[in-house]
């Protein structure tokens, strides 16, 4: 049963537009993540949030920004998308640290930039 929910499933937009993706987890986890998965299936972590604090930012372009209202939600906003932003964006969550470090993933949002 899915416990990490992402909306929308797909989004098609044009260069220069702004998009926002939503992620919610119902697992009571402390930490949430956003990954970018390219066409070759390579996973790159973009952000992670722990108790509303950004703890990892892998030098993503400034047009990307995470937004969190509480520990169960972590949205991703892309201001002025570019063609290279076309990818699948995966949200994940985990408990903090140690043996709880396994991550649970949502189904992903596929972004196509025309």
């Amino acid at each position: 049963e899915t416990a990490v929910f992402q909306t929308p499933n797909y989004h098609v937009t044009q260069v220069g537009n702004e998009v926002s993706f939503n992620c919610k987890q119902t697992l009571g986890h402390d930490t949430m993540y956003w990954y970018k998965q390219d066409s070759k299936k390579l996973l790159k972590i973009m952000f992670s949030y722990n108790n509303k604090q950004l703890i990892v930012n892998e030098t993503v372009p400034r047009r990307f920004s995470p937004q969190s209202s509480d520990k169960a939600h972590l949205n991703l906003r892309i201001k002025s998308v570019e063609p290279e932003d076309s990818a699948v964006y995966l949200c994940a969550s985990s408990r903090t640290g140690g043996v709880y470090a396994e991550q649970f993933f949502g189904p992903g949002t596929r972004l196509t930039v025309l």
Partner: protein
Amino acid sequence: AQSVTQPDARVTVSEGASLQLRCKYSYSGTPYLFWYVQYPRQGLQLLLKYYSGDPVVQGVNGFEAEFIKSNSSFHLRKASVHWSDSAVYFCAVSAYYGNEKITFGAGTKLTIKP
């Protein structure tokens, strides 16, 4: 820094045959190791994990993996594959304590021939 190498980008096996997907990791401390599977148009799902104890760990759907510290390897195995096992498999490593960052390998795409 931690890293994961999956040397085989694609593997094709016949249904009913045995399977081994290779994974080698690099990490100076005590690793926490994972195998995830990604079915088409879905997020990643945890197959199995290892952090201590018996070096052969059992996972879901008949998968197992063996931790060999001397070889820095964590290969995934299955005795008899089914067509539904066709997917992309990711090996990952994390620090055992205090680090929420998981490093994923590039993935191995598994195709099952009828």
